[in-house]
């Protein structure tokens, strides 16, 4: 076991799947010689050759078309969309084509594509580089969407994503790339694609979050603990499908819940989680479902983003409000 950053853990997972399956291919803008603009695919072209890890012309719709066509000829594509904001260029490829194709063939053919893409605020990028756009994809039947909040899950999830015969959108939080280190096994392991995880146990209130907001929720839980409020923190990991069993088991214990997301209130997956809870667990709740989200503006220019992104203080305040309801 070695201490690994989030980004190294992803690289390690990609190295693993390239070694395991000669039909896997990595391609996208700058992923080859440059190893990606964040170096997520660093050294992989040297190790596996330009046949397996290669640069494409600059066009996201082309990248998705390539992935679908390669699936049709027996390959297991791992395209990168350099930033999630550029998935819009590939929207037809992802939503109009890829997600529907297994159904369209009456289940005859598989499209085992893993789209990797960085997202997430707080690092002062240029516009369209930080938005949480999961909303567009979790409402797309046929596509799985996963995102890790820590290095261990990042490696295990990327391996599962590539091994899955369903198309998977693998969202990489760019603020976490180098800000987090964890014990990560060098050997192969997987994290299931459809399971949430209790990352901190508690008895008084459940905090449901994903990606970077999991760490904000953990910080909030520390603060709440000082006042003897015991918060249980759940990392969704899978945004589509949602693992409601894990959430419901927690609510049966705490009877109070706050759902947290970095995306705007009208986006993200908080509304989906809240509506599931309302439908299935309302009798188990002692307080309304709390929500923490960014306000409904366009994702702001860099200088203002940290006033806008929900942080541990916002989570703590909402948790106290729901706890004291």
């Amino acid at each position, binding site marked *: 076991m070695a201490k690994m950053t989030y980004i190294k853990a992803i690289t390690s997972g990609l190295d693993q799947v390239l070694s395991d399956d000669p039909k896997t291919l990595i391609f996208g803008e700058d992923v080859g010689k440059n190893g990606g603009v964040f170096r997520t695919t660093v050294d992989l072209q040297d190790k596996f050759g330009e046949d397996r890890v290669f640069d494409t*012309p*600059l066009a996201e719709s082309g990248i998705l078309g390539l992935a679908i066509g390669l699936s049709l000829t027996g390959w297991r594509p791992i395209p990168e969309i350099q930033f999630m*904001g550029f998935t819009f260029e590939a929207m037809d490829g992802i939503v109009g084509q890829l997600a529907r194709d297994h159904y369209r063939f009456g289940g005859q053919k598989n499209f085992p594509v893993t789209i990797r893409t960085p997202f997430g605020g707080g690092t002062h*990028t240029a516009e369209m580089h930080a938005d949480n756009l999961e909303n567009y994809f979790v409402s797309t039947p046929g596509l799985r969407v996963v995102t890790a909040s820590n290095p261990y899950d990042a490696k295990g999830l990327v391996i599962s994503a590539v091994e899955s015969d369903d198309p998977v959108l693998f969202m990489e939080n760019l603020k976490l790339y180098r800000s987090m280190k964890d014990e990560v096994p060098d050997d192969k392991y997987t994290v299931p694609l459809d399971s949430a995880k209790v990352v901190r146990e508690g008895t008084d209130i459940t905090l449901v979050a994903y990606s970077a907001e999991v760490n904000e929720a953990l910080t909030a839980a520390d603060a709440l603990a000082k006042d003897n409020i015991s918060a249980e923190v759940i990392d969704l990991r899978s945004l589509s499908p949602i693992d409601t069993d894990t959430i419901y088991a927690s609510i049966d214990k705490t009877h109070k819940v706050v759902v947290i997301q970095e995306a705007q209130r009208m986006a993200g997956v908080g509304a989906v989680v809240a509506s599931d809870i309302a439908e299935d667990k309302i009798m188990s709740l002692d307080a309304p479902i709390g929500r923490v989200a960014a306000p409904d503006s366009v994702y*702001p*220019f860099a200088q*203002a983003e940290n006033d806008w992104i929900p942080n541990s203080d916002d989570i703590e305040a909402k948790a106290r409000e729901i706890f004291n309801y």
Partner: protein
Amino acid sequence: MANGSKQIVDFAKIKATMADPYKHPVQVINGDGKVVDPDTLAKYSDDQLVDFMKKMVWERTLHEQTMNFSRQGRLGFYAPTAGEEASEMGSVTAFKDQDFLLPAYRDLPQMIQHGTTVAKGFLWSKGHVSGNQYENPNMLFPQIIIGAQYAETAGVALGIQKNGDKDRVAFVYTGDGGTSQGDWYEGINFTSAYQAPAVFFVQNNGWAISVPRKKQTAAETLAQKAVAMGVPSVQVDGMDIVAVHEVAKAARDFAVAGNGPVVIETLTYRYGAHSSAGDDPSRYRTDEETKPWFDADPLIRMRKVLTDKGVWSQDQEDKLVDQYKDEFKDAMKEAEAAPAQKVSDFLKWTYNVPTPAVKKQIAEFEAKESK
């Protein structure tokens, strides 16, 4: 088919000759500072040539000063422009205030020439939305999404045509990488279909971050791609400001006369990193590769022409550099003095009429902000 029999079509020959009209990029002053087209140069007064040089010194100094600011952490995302002065200043100076500019992120220098301030450019880079509030209404913000501005150019050009504006065009920039986007083709094709007035620039600086030009397409030139859309095009030495300006002016005249759009590929080079956000060119290109481009520097060759004419001196240039540096430092101070952005403010810009949810959020943030 029998061996040696004549084929109905010779694809190999077609492929080999497709780039024939593009064998000789337009040039007035070559890489050694030698005037290869004296007739064209003679059309320009000394004052005009000196003005070109001043603009290039201005842009080079802006580049150097922004690199300093970046190192000091005083700018956000910034795309270095050194090497592209002739391409950028030679082109933008061929347009008029009423022409509509659609720039990309590497085109701040043209934007400042066309109708904003250096301080606003810095605010944009710092991630402050007031950087996008311009003096000249005929301008879009620096487009981050590669290709989007090309598709939008069709609309601006058609709008100009429908308004009956006679002396007005749209002009737009992208890079070599940008020519691979669907939007690139769609924008040119739409404009051509409507025969609307636009000039499309491709600043081919050799690289799309780490991806070399030759990996974008097997086409020998980017200019020739325009042919498929019924649009005339040209390759020009993008390190030669007179050639770029001459071609840009001719393109504007052609478009304004109702002949439809033109595509111009400027052959230039990005001396520095792709952006201030951590790109390291030594990962993907060698000094051997870059040296000929540094030797072909647009300022060196213009300096030589003007010095030979006796209208330029090093002393004069040094003074200009100092003057520009001071201007840029003042602009930075102005940018740094801008009031912080408020979430309640930009919530108000989400919709003209705030939705109930947005209204509630504005009130929440106003309460927070007044604390």
